[in-house]
């Protein structure tokens, strides 16, 4: 157990207890922000597996997010079931699609690969727009169902969603923590740092990349399923878009690529920025949060590519001198 694990354990404990303390998180809005932070942190962390640890920058993750969302959504809206079968199927499907699509793309280098990933998003986006079975451009709207864990639905009280998000967060971060300290994590980082060198040490880089993208897609799809349960509707422009894909990437970059805490840091900065500026300025200040976000990205990439974690590490190194 690393020293950092105690920190995470404590953090989880605090976050679990937060809603029970009167006053904090009292307002529905604060709870909403917390839920989004946890959700986006989980999403970014899932992306981080492929993009940060394995070094393969993909702009296509919104496809997996969308498959997960539609999986749960279809179960509830089209087949009138509880979302859970859809969640599982959606996640598995996302992993399969990920492996199938990415396998031929692995031979593409750098920029060609990146462009291929967003070509894929655009294709999926438009296909879903005209696909009748999934609701086309109008998407899926949730009907009223009974509240509770079976349907993963609550209409008044957000606290259960909060705990759901916390569980999701723990699953994703826990998985990454596990990978980080076991063979797969080392191999993924080796592929990132030097594929040829890794191969010379017996690492099958294709299998490693496939494993990375399958796990990444699976977890991303779980996040998509949570999203649709919370949002009560889904349509292609919401989930299968380049903008959504970029959120995964940019939150991780802002926080710190390839680190465990990075995605949480990035989400903790971006989400409040997004939600509070929307609340404060609403229609008038259209896009202010994105202007700030864009500037932050430029500054981070230019000055401190390692993101917030990079800044924190540099500070602690200077202190220990």
């Amino acid at each position: 157990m690393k020293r950092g694990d105690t920190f995470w354990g404590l953090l989880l404990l605090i976050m679990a207890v937060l809603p029970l303390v009167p006053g904090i998180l009292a307002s529905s809005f604060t709870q909403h922000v917390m839920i989004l932070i946890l959700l986006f942190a989980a999403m970014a962390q899932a992306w981080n597996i492929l993009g940060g640890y394995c070094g393969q920058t993909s702009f296509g993750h919104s496809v997996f997010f969308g498959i997960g969302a539609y999986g749960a959504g279809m179960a509830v809206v089209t087949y009138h079931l509880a979302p859970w079968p859809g969640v599982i199927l959606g996640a598995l499907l996302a992993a399969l699609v990920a492996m199938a699509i990415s396998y031929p793309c692995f031979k593409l280098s750098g920029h060609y690969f990146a462009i291929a990933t967003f070509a894929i998003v655009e294709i999926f986006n438009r296909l879903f727009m005209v696909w009748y079975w999934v609701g086309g451009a109008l998407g899926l709207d949730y009907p009223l169902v009974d509240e509770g864990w079976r349907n993963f639905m609550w209409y008044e009280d957000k606290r259960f969603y909060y705990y759901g998000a916390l569980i999701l967060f723990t699953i994703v971060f826990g998985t990454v923590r596990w990978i980080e300290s076991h063979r797969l994590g080392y191999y993924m980082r080796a592929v990132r740092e030097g594929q040829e060198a890794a191969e010379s040490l017996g690492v099958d880089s294709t299998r490693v990349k496939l494993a990375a993208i399958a796990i990444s897609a699976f977890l991303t799809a779980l996040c998509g399923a949570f999203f649709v349960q919370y949002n009560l509707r889904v349509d292609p422009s919401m989930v299968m878009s380049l903008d959504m894909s970029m959120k995964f990437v940019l939150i991780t970059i802002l926080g710190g690529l390839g680190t465990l805490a990075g995605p949480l840091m990035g989400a903790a900065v971006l989400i409040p920025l997004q939600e509070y500026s929307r609340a404060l300025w609403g229609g008038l200040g259209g896009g202010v949060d994105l202007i700030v976000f864009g500037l932050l990205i430029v500054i981070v990439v230019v000055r401190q590519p390692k993101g917030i974690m990079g800044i924190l590490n540099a500070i602690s190194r200077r202190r220990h001198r």
Partner: protein
Amino acid sequence: MALLSVRNVSMAFGSLIANDDVTFDIDEGSIVGLIGPNGAGKTTLFNCISGICRPTAGTIHFDGVDITRSPASRTARLGAVRTFQVVHPLQEMTVTDNVMVGAFLRHRKPAAARAKANACIGLCRLEDFCDKRAGSLTIGTKKRLEVARALATGARLLMLDEAMAGLTSTEVRESVELITQLKEKGLTLLVVEHIMEAIMPIADKLVVLDGGKKIAEGPPDTIIRDERVVAAYLGTKFSQKMKSSVP
């Protein structure tokens, strides 16, 4: 049966013939030096053996297994591992993590891999650099890291590509000691080197390449006296000097 068996291997890049009908064997537990002038095809031969290129003709067998068309990762898994002339440290990872990547080949669990890695780090005298970023090391240390990493894979055949280039004379001496130690542990080594003072005393046999062809093969004392080798690579003055130091 020889551990590594290279038979009639040719490697052509378009009209450029880098390796031309090269044949030699390596016996288990021996140190074989691969020498020759720059451009002779030594690194290309390494690339063919280790699986980065596929030879255009010929066969290569490792411990009886045909590895001619085997991709690099499979060859490494079978036990033939190489280092690179231009070092490839995994920059952002620590020295320990770098070596662990190698160790994970035969040790699935992190604890066992770490133990193996620490052993190899000790062998290569890298203990002081354990937690340092691999990218921040000096060239000499990076070369030791390459060796430690390759060692950690549990290789039976270690192929070193100019592992001593750019090292100080102290570092060269330490490398020679290390190679001798490894041989004592039962490893087989194929070493490409230009530093004759280092390789001549320890090699069991030398294979000499020139212009893609093998021009000589034999124990060091024979090679020193071989006219073709002297003409193509060693030079008369040098070979006179070496004759006295080779047993």
